[in-house]
């Protein structure tokens, strides 16, 4: 029976566990995307090298690559020549930050970023620090939202780049980017945005936010892993120091044979997202609210991040009186992410939640539920039931009295 054709809601026994609540980590490839990709594989497919302009199959492959470039550009409000293919958002972030910093090193060696950025940005900045750059790591504002109030005091005359993510990958808050973009433009500072968690989930327009550089990935948007893109304002011929040399592909910014099937997959994924995003966001917002209300009824549950400025499908919560590793193991029927690094000796809690001021216990007991295209109401209801049962059980094991005690407080 096809999904969604059940006469009655599926029972727990009918669901295949663990149920997937980790769409912010990655997404399955949409079947429509799979079909587009398969057309580019195999002897009968569009497999030629897109750089082989001397023959028809090569030109056909190039045509598909350029169609995908238009599709990605369209979702971002960009022009196709401003899109550079990469292997994913991590490479895009590296190319944007290292490439811009090194290219503009004669203008200054100072970068501003945020403590709650993804490691792909933070580790790249740390590498530049080893190479002699100075980096200011600012703390986000209330609710984990970063705005111009946080960025402006950190700017210096020698600042060449500001890097702020669009949507935080752990707590889902949407940063206030447009004022930062305007400030950067006024000061002549490049503005990079990691939009890996934003593209295909919320409207992204590079002009509205004033981004000079913007990183995206296919696999967060029901496309394949291993492909992404970097938006570079203007014609990307002389604004970045490339990281990869050899062949001069992508205007010399990123050499290497273009993976036609991956790129076509990313284009298809972004085209589908452009058409379906508004309705999908509304559906996910309803599911997320249902999940939050179901879990919050336990008592002693804290929502992490601003309650309003957030993407539709992401909910990050912390539980009082529950230890993170036990919580995650107790919830092994749900595939989700934890803010706890509890299997390591350090017991280091989420650096994002710590930056927001959560204490160790709440940071350790945080869970990130991220919903997506295939999430259903029945799955959410199952998750609510399992979470309530297990949190109650663990609180009782710890000597608390479960829901009854917390509701009485």
């Amino acid at each position, binding site marked *: 029976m096809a999904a969604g054709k059940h006469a009655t809601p599926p029972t727990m026994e009918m669901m295949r566990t663990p149920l997937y609540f980790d769409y912010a980590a990655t997404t399955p490839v949409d079947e429509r995307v799979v079909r587009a990709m398969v057309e580019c594989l195999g002897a009968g497919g569009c497999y030629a090298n897109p750089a082989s302009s001397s023959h028809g199959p090569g030109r056909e492959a190039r045509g598909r690559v350029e169609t995908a470039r238009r599709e990605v550009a369209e979702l971002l409000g960009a022009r196709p020549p401003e899109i550079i293919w990469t292997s994913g958002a991590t490479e895009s972030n590296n190319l944007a930050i290292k490439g811009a910093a090194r290219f503009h090193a004669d203008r200054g060696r100072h970068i501003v970023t945020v403590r709650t950025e993804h490691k792909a940005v933070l580790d790249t900045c740390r590498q530049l620090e080893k190479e002699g750059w100075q980096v200011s790591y600012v703390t986000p504002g209330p609710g984990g939202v970063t705005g111009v109030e946080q960025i402006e005091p950190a700017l210096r005359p020698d600042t060449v780049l500001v890097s702020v993510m669009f949507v935080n990958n752990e707590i889902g808050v949407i940063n206030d980017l447009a004022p930062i973009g305007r400030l950067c433009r006024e000061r002549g500072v490049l503005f990079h945005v990691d939009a890996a968690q934003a593209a295909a989930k919320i409207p992204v327009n590079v002009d509205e936010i004033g981004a000079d550089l913007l990183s995206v990935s296919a696999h967060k948007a029901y496309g394949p892993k291993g492909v992404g893109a970097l938006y570079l304002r203007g014609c990307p011929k002389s604004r970045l120091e490339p990281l990869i040399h050899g062949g001069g592909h992508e205007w010399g910014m990123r050499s290497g044979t273009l993976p036609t099937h991956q790129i076509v997959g990313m284009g298809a994924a972004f085209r589908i997202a452009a058409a379906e995003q508004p309705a999908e966001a509304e559906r996910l917002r309803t599911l997320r609210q249902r999940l939050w209300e179901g879990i919050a009824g336990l008592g002693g549950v804290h929502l992490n991040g601003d309650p309003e400025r957030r993407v539709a499908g992401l909910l990050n919560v912390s539980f009082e009186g529950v*230890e993170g590793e036990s919580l995650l193991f107790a919830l092994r029927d749900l595939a989700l992410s*934890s803010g706890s690094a509890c299997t390591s*000796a350090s017991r280091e809690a989420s650096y994002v939640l710590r930056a927001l001021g959560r204490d160790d216990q709440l940071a350790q007991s945080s869970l990130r539920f991220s919903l997506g295209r295939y999430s259903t109401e029945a799955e959410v209801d199952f998750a609510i039931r399992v979470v309530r049962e297990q949190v109650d059980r663990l609180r009782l094991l710890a000597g608390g009295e479960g829901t009854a005690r917390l509701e009485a407080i």
Partner: protein
Amino acid sequence: MQLERLDYSGEVRQRFEQAPRHGRVLAPPAERLGGAAGAIGRGVRVEFEARVRGGRIVECRFRAYGCPHVIAAASWVAEQAEGRRLADTDWLEPRRLAELLEAPAHKLGSLLVVEDAYLDCVGARRGPER
């Protein structure tokens, strides 16, 4: 954290799920001992209660905040304590407990908290709180 890293032995899984000997001892104060160690803020907190008659533990219960290894260890200790004399504490050795539970090396500190809580309960704490 990745779920596949949550790799526990059968003993730990069973004790985590069933939590045998969890709870409180219902006994008159004269027969009841209690002790605790650790702190929730540090990730591990364990409490034991014992019903004692004639210097011998007739019933032992635990409460634990911690990872599955801690819960399993507290359960095992409470179970093993029953029938023993208060002064008999040599049977409780955290390294052997770690072997029994197949706990990774970095969990030994948490198992020491379990030991401390039990020793506090039976009034035989061996040194400063760990």
